[in-house]
């Protein structure tokens, strides 16, 4: 059941991205940036966390969850340490993803050449 909702919600967010590609003719960079902002706004409105509860990886795997995590980190820190927390807390939750991407990409570039 959990897998079904992950599939449906995750797939649905990807369809939203595909429509941005094909109907709005946005570039991948524009599309991903828009989705990240949507995820951020959704968390601000309190909608993203329930979606995560409900759809699990269907909500945490798409790039929208990056926006959600940034806002989540900012607002959690705001609550705990005050206004400065907004900028101090942002990357707390997202650190693993960004760090992993940097490290693995760097290591890959040391040994692998692009195949075209």
């Amino acid at each position, binding site marked *: 059941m959990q897998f079904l909702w992950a599939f449906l919600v995750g797939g649905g967010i990807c369809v939203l991205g595909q429509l941005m590609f094909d109907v709005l003719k946005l570039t991948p960079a524009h599309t991903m940036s828009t989705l990240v902002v949507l995820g951020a706004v959704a968390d*601000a409105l309190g909608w993203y966390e329930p979606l995560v509860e409900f759809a699990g990886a269907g909500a*945490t795997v798409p790039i929208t969850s*990056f926006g959600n995590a940034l806002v989540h980190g900012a607002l959690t820190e705001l609550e705990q340490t005050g206004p400065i927390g907004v900028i101090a807390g942002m990357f707390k939750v997202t650190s693993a993803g960004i760090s992993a991407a940097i490290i693995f990409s760097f290591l890959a570039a040391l040994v692998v050449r692009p195949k075209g």
Partner: protein
Amino acid sequence: MATKTAGRGKFKPMSMSSKEYKTFAKQREPSRSVLANCVRAFVSGGLICVLGQAIQNGYMSWMKLSSTQAANPTVATLIFISVLLTCFGVYDKIAQWAGAGSAVPVTGFANSMCSAALEHRAEGLVLGVGGNMFKLAGSVIVYGTVAAFVIGLIHVIFGIRGH
């Protein structure tokens, strides 16, 4: 050799306004199969999320983690898989079929960084790899950060409590 007759070769010169031409060209543009693309994006994106769920469940049961704690290793694992597929030269082939289904998940984010790093290795580790890694992913990080800041600012100004 062609004989030159008066008026031969004198066709009406091409004259079309930019507006007219854009419509003319649009009518002759092969249409993207939007429905087919959406179905492929749905299926492939959904499957990547299912994989993510399976990995998360795996960490939860194997390492006895809660779902919040399992989120980090899950993301790291998906990123690792994406980097691997990029290195094998396979990710771009999958993407031509899957479209947003491979670009929207965090795997797409990792692919954007890894592909840029691999491509610019020829320009050295510092300026090439280091300087270009965020070529494509940079916009995502910038806009996410700015959006989170604006939202945080709104919370501070209006005295809304955080999470």
